[in-house]
Structures are given as C-alpha cells and as structure tokens.
C-alpha cells in the first residue's frame, strides 16, 4: 500500500465507519472531531508526498498498479506528477478547512460521512492514471456532492442539486463514450485491451475521430470547470449549498475539469489540441469577459462569486491551451490560488449570511463600521481575487497572460481586459456591502476568535503564495514543460478514414 493508496483508502474507510457511530446527540461533536482528525492525517500524507517528491523529473511518482477488472483490462493504477501533487495538496487543505467550518448540524454522521467520501473521490480523481478508474472517481464525486447540496441546503436546494447532478452526468456521458471508443481503437491497433493512460497515449488516430474524441472529453470537463456556455448550474448550486460543501465544490471540484483538460485532452490528443486550441481559448476568454460582466450585474453576493469564479476559470482554460510552459505553469498555480481565495471568500459569505440571513447587497451596507477586522480580511481576499501583486492571485494570472501573449498575442490582449473588469465588480460589491451608512440597525458582530482561526490558514496562504510561490512552481515546472513539449512535438494527424483503424496499422 503506497502513499497514494492510503490517501484514497483512509477517507473512504472513514466514510464507511462514520455512519456506524450511532452516538447520542450530546457527543455528536466526537464525529466531527473524527472527521477533522482524518482530514488532518490526509493533510499530513499530502505534505509528506510533497516533501518526498523528486523535483527534476516529470515522470509519475508514488505509482501503484494492481489488477482490478481483468475482463476489460482495467487496473487500480495511481500515480502523481507535479500537477496532481499540487492539486492533492489543495484538496487536503480545503477539506480540513471545510471540516473545521462544519457547525450547527444536529446529525454529523451523514455530513462527515459524505465529506470523507467526497475527499476520497477527489483524491482518486487527481491521481488516477487508469481512464476507467478516473471516470469512476469523477462520477463518484457527484454522489456525495449531490447529498451535501440537497440534504442540508436551503431553499431551492433540491432542484439545484438535481440540476448539478444531471448537468455533470450528461457531460460525463460523452466522457465515458470517448474513453471506451479510444480504448477499443487502441485495442484494434495493438491488440492489447487496456485503460492505462501512458499506454493509450500512443494510439494513432485519424483526424476526424481524434476531433470527436477530443470534444467528447472536453464536454465533460467543460461542464465541470465550468467553461463559458456550460456554467449555468454553478450560480444556483453555489448559492443554495451549505458553505462547507461550496468550499469544496468551488475550491476543489472546479479544478477537476481543468485538471482533466490537461491530463487527458492535452496528453491523449496533442495534435488535435493544437488544432482546436483557438476554440478552447475563445471560450476561455469569453468566460472571462462574460463572467465578469454578469458578476457586475448580480445583486446576490453568492451568485456574484460564482460568476467571478467562472471568469477566473476562464483564465485557467486560456492558460492551458496557450501551449507555453509559462502559461501552463501559471494555470496550474492559478488552480491552487483560485481554490484558496474562493474557499476564503465563501467562508466569509457564510459568516455574513449567518449574521444577517441574506446575501442581497441591497440589504447589506456599512458593515465596515461595525466589523473592521471582518472588513480587513474581506478586502485582503478581494484584493487576492483581483490579482494585486504580492497576493496569490497575481503570480498565476501574470504567468498565464505572459505565456498566452507569447504564443497567441491577441487572446492575451483581450484577456488582460479581465484584469480591469475583475477590479470593477469586486470593488463595487465591496463598496455596496462595507462602505456607506449602516442600513440595518441589527449590529454586525466582528470576527469571533473561532472564525478568525478558520480564516487564518487561508489568509496566510494567500499572502505566502503571493510572495514566495517557488515551492509549488519548482514542482509544477518540470511536468508542465514536459506536457508542452509533448503537445508541440506531436505529429499532425492524417485524415485517413475510420476504417483504417479497424484493420489496425503496424505498431
């Protein structure tokens, strides 16, 4: 059992054990401590992995390969390279924060159980190297998040939960068909039925099939990221789910989409990625601008942050498909940064909601007078989101833009506009909520020590990653430059018809 197996097995076992703990109501807190304990151990493992990670190699580390379903050539095949490692770290941190943020729940068993299962699924998705295993974990993330959104949500949570599940499930329908088709084409060509990513990378695909497969993969990840036209589920879901769930949904699961694009679209279809780069980058930039504009028009803080994360994910997608080492490293780093400050902003929104029962900007105003500490943390996180240099948002965004400028100049020029739009809607929202006169006579309690403790790690990370991101970058760079090289050197695909696959060319 290597580190990665423990990484996934631990929370999964935790999720199985928790429902059995039928404790009387008063020491329900024990279950929450149990959840916190497991997520802390996860964090320990993740940090251990990061420390033990060999720096100057882009190959997969901590690899484990065990037979699972012989009939289809499926193995329990896990491995982590720079990108997966960084995202595993992010997942571990955010889950620990989410576990701490859980309160006010009478029956912790279901809550902690689903959270741990979700953690196992996310860890699995980031480290799976077997396409079937990835698909299983990718789908598995839906079940707990559905329950987390619907059972403990508020208002129209049921409907939003179903919309989230069906939308993502439909997206992954294409992914499944794509995976299986690729596997069978590979089987025809090499007679070796396997789902392992390194093996499938050598399949020679004719042009039109490769495009279809690329789009099938991209469809699922586009819904998950979300990319521009497929984002309508995210405002409803982020608004109606409880805060700890949203921290995970926006912070970790949004990265699944982007990670999938890098790991599968770029590595499996390098030539097609080059051809369709213009499409994905246009969608990315459209997402940046559209997300920002709609966010400016939004009256509800929760929905505004959902659209702003659509805009930020637009940057990440842009970076992925710019095919330059700077841009790809920037995107990966930005994934971590986005996770951190989105988690922080949603925790803050949760605290506002708890005090005032609404997130409508019209009903909130002049809060800074009553809660200066709260306002200070809020503005710091907002400045991080805007990409103020010295905070974590800037480094990733700068790398993405400079990388995109080198390869696709005009997309970068338009994307830079996003930098300004970001400032507009975020500062406008901050002003409507914190500046001006207090609209509501009910006081606004300042940060309680418990809440401050919850936000401290995230705020510290926002500042630390802004000033010194090198530890992460040192681990990301080798992998990203290898992927960029892989995409650049892939031979262009001939447009021979599908039949040629069936006859199976010589390997």
């Amino acid at each position, binding site marked *: 059992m290597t580190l990665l197996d423990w990484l996934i097995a631990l929370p999964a076992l935790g999720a199985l054990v928790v429902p059995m703990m039928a404790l009387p109501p008063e020491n329900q807190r024990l279950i929450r401590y149990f959840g916190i304990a497991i997520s802390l151990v996860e964090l320990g493992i993740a940090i251990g992995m990061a420390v033990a990670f060999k720096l100057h190699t882009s190959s997969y580390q901590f690899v484990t390969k065990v037979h699972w379903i012989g009939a289809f050539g499926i193995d329990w095949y896990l491995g982590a390279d720079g990108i997966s490692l960084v995202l595993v770290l992010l997942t571990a941190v955010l889950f620990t924060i989410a576990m701490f943020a859980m309160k006010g729940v009478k029956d912790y068993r279901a809550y902690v159980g689903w959270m741990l299962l979700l953690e196992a699924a996310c860890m699995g998705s980031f480290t799976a190297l077997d396409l*079937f295993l990835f698909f299983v974990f990718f789908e*598995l993330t839906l079940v707990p998040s559905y329950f987390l959104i619907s059972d403990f949500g*508020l208002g129209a949570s049921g409907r939003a939960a179903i919309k989230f*599940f069906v939308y993502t499930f439909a997206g992954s*329908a*294409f992914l*499944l068909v794509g995976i299986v088709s690729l*596997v*069978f084409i590979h089987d025809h060509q090499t007679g070796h039925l396997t789902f392992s990513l390194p093996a499938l990378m050598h399949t020679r695909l004719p042009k039109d099939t490769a495009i279809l497969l690329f789009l099938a993969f991209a469809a699922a990840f586009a819904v998950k990221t979300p990319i521009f036209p497929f984002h309508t589920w995210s405002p409803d879901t982020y608004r109606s789910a409880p*805060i700890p769930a949203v921290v995970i949904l926006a912070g970790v699961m949004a990265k699944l989409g982007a990670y999938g694009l890098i790991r599968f679209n770029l590595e499996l279809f390098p030539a097609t990625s080059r051809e369709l780069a213009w499409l994905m980058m246009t969608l990315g930039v459209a997402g940046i601008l559209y997300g920002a504009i709609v966010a400016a028009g939004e009256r509800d803080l929760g929905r505004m942050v959902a659209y702003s994360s659509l805009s930020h994910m637009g940057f990440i997608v842009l970076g992925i498909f710019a095919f330059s080492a700077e841009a790809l490293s920037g995107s990966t780093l930005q994934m971590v940064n986005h996770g951190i400050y989105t988690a922080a902003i949603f925790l803050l929104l949760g605290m506002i909601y708890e005090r005032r029962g609404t997130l409508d900007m019209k009903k909130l105003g002049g809060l800074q007078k009553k809660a200066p500490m709260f306002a200070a943390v809020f503005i710091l996180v907002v400045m991080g989101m805007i990409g103020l240099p010295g905070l974590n948002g800037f480094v990733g965004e700068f790398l993405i833009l400079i990388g995109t400028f080198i390869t696709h100049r005009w997309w970068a020029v338009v994307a830079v506009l996003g930098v300004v739009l970001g400032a507009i809607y975020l500062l406008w929202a901050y002003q409507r909520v914190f500046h001006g006169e207090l609209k509501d006579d009910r006081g606004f309690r300042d940060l309680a020590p418990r809440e401050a403790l919850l936000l401290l790690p995230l705020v510290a990370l926002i500042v630390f990653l802004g000033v010194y991101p090198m530890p992460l970058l040192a681990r990301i760079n080798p992998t990203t430059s290898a992927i960029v090289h892989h995409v650049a050197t892939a031979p262009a695909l001939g447009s021979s018809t599908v039949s040629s696959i069936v006859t199976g060319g010589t390997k």
Partner: protein
Amino acid sequence: MFGTLVSQLPIRLPAISYQAIAPEMILFGAALVVLALSATIGRREHPELYRGIGLLAALGEGAWSANLLRLVDKHGASLAIAGAIANDGFSAVVGIIVAAALVLTMLIGPGFVRSVAGQGPEFVTLLLISATGAIVMAQADDLIVIFLGLEILSIALYIMVGFRLRDGLSREAAFKYFILGGFSSAVFLYGVALVYGATGSTNLLKIGSFLSTHVLINNGVLLFGLALILVGFGFKISAVPFHVWSPDVYQGAPTSVTGYMAAMAKIAAFAALLRVLTVAFHLQLQYWRPIIIALALLSLVFGAVFALRQREIKRMLAYSSINHAGFILLGVLAATSGGIRDSLFYLGAYSVMVIGTFGLISMIQVDTGKTEGSLSLTDVRGLGQRRPAMAILLAILVLAQAGAPFTSGFIAKFSVITAVIAVNEYWIAVVAMIAAAIAVAFYLRLVLALFARDENKVGAGDALYPVPVRGGSDAGFLQPSRASQVPVWIGIWLSVAATVFFGVFPSLLLNLVGKGKIFF
C-alpha cells in the same frame, strides 16, 4: 434407475438426459410437493413451510445449474431431448440468475402477499412454476418450446398480478396484462409459423443451418416471421412501442410481484431472444439489427423521458425498467460474444437490484399504511427521518439503477456501452448515456423526496447552516414487531450487498457470465 424402468415400457421414448432438464424438474417438483402438502395438512397452518420448500428448491436449482456449468466447462455443451433443449454455458448461467432472482423473491415476496391474499401456498407455487417456465425458455433450442416456456411463465404471472383479490386495481392490471399478453403470444406464434413455413423447421439449429445453406429467393415470409417474433419478445421485455402495458401492470400488481415480474420476465425473454438471434438468424444480421437498434433507442429515450413527469413511484420504476430494457438491448444488438456476456451481466445486476427495490417499496407501503396500489412521492417524503435505514438502502439501490459508481449498475451500464462501441456504433452509445443522464433526474427526485425534510413539520428554514434535523426514530434496523419481517430484511440486505459488492469487485460476476457462451 428411472431410465431403465421406463425403457421396459412398450412406447419408445426419445433419449431424455434428465441431467439437462434437472433445473426445471427441481422447481416443478417443489411446486407439486407444496400443493400436495397444502392439500394434506390444511391451507392455513404452516405458511413458513411452503416458503422454506420454495427456498430450498430455488437453492437446489441454483446449485444444479452451477454444477451443469462445471460439466459444460469440462465436457463441452450438448443438445438434449432431441434438440429441444441446449445444455450449454448460456442456459447454465441463466439458470443461476433465475435461481438468484427466485431466492430473493422467496425471501421478500411471501411475507407481504400473505398479509394481502391469505395464507395459502398458491403464491409460492406460482413462483416456482413461473421460474420453471423461465428456465424452459432459456434452455429452449426450438421456437415451439420457447413458446411453451413463454406461456408457462406468462400465465403464472397473469395470476400473480391479479393476486390481490379485494383490490380493483390488481384485477384490472391482471386483465390488461392477460389480454395484451394473449395478443402478443398470438402474434409471436404467427411469426413462428411463418418462419416454420419459410425454413421447414422450428428448431433453431436446423433453421440456422437451413438459412446458411439455402439462399431464399424472396425472404419476405421469413422476415415477416422474424419481425413478428421480435414483436412477441418486444412485448415481454416491455420495449417501446410494445411497452404500453407495463406502467399500469407495474402499478396495479402487488409490489413484490411487480419486482419479481420485472426481473423474471426480462431474464427469460432476453435469454430466448439472444439464443434465437444468435443461433437461428445470425446471417440475417443486417435485417434484424436495425429493428433492435430502433427498439433500443426508443426504449432508452422514452423510458427516461416519460418517467420525468411521474408522481407515482411504481409507475416511475416501470418506465425506468423500460429504460433498462433499452440498455440490455444494446448488448443484444452488438451480436458479439462480448455483447451476450454484457447483456447477461446487466440482467443479473438489474434483477437483483429491482427485486430489492420493490421489496423496500413494499416495506415502505406497509410502513406508511398505503398498501393499495399507488405510492406517490409525497407519501415517501421525509422517510429519511422516520426510517433512516430503509431510506439509505433504497437510496443505494435507486442510485445503483441510476448508474452511480461502485455499484453493479455502473459496471452494467459501462459493460453494455463497451459492447456497443466495440461494433463502432458510437452514436448509439452517446444517445444511451444521454438517456441515462435524463433518467438520473427522476431517480434523484425520488432520493431527494426520501431525504427531504418534511416542509410542514420542520419548516425548511432559510439558514445556510442546516436547521437542526429532527432526530429520526431509533436507528434500529429491524422492526421486530412481526417475525415475518426478518426474511424480508435478509432478502433486501442480500440484494444491496450484492449490488455494492459486484460494483467494487465485478470481475467475479464478469468471469461467471463470461462462461455463458451460446454453443450452438
């Protein structure tokens, strides 16, 4: 011993290898024993005894089929009873699946039906007889024998559907099922007659060899016959457009009967369909594959879409069963050995799930006191608080039907999709998965209703942090109120355990099903 006795008789009997038809004999024998016993010791006294015998018979049949499978592995397949019965891996595996379905139903069914329709042995007998019919259909290598098996199964089901005597809905369902069943059997039979006319034999093997050696000038009659046979099968597996009976019958019939019927009818019909298409009409592939594709796509899409607006759970599950039929048809249309294996896997996984699901629904009906016919979503609302255990188990089974990962449902859907893609039918796979996505919507609405907090009692407070959830009744799994609950819970736990186990370690079932090759 029996063989030698018979051989003295003047009549010349065909060489009967009792080994091959042992499964039918075990079940049918048990049915007779139960009837005889009830006649001698009075109908009402020992209902448990009948269930015991039924259970024993089911287990015996399963063990025998497994033994048959081992023999086939060792000595290869063989024909029995003058070519009427095929004793190959396929029939053995279907035998095992029938046994599994029968065991679960024996555990779950009788408890509820007894509270509704008296203590008599009738229910157990009918179960055993219908199972015999199913096995006959699966093993049959002759169209007429398939018809025979079909009728044994169907007539037993007609009666079981109408079992709740004092309830109008049940009688109406039985009638509808009977009339439409009778009609479709007639159509099926006419098809058999036409095929007989075109090829000169009703034996699948002879038809296959005839068609491979002769080229028919106008194969109109043959194709008409084949089409009508497909209609007969289409009705039985409730594929769209021949599905119209199933929503009403699923709702009207007693819940555990519905579960059994959904499973057994599909097992038998698909087994026979697979054998007919593979053995007899493997050369007419380009004619019947488009029909099967049409049936599959219609069932997939309309099965999912029509369920969206359903408020009554059993009707909703009827449409979901149509959707599942569509998925299994994918395996059939692949017409490869992989396709057969995947269809069998789907059949196995599906029947275990569906019997468990309907078992749980009958438990809920008893719990909510709505024993007559319909059980709507509002009745189920907030079950998560009152009966957390029941709600969680039903949620697992429903999610398995939706295809959630780490359940056999997921592996089933995945394997059938691989079967279709292996024959380059990419677009069908995409439509199938989209239909699955639509289906997820109404599965989730059911799960949501289970766990939603009762609006009236707790009031869905507008707090982002969940309003303190009212504690459910004690988390005790077993309501020890009535002894008859114990086997039901065992049955349900077995089906849930099997669903999750084969989801995580599917290779066991995949290898078993892999042996189910149609030899002839």
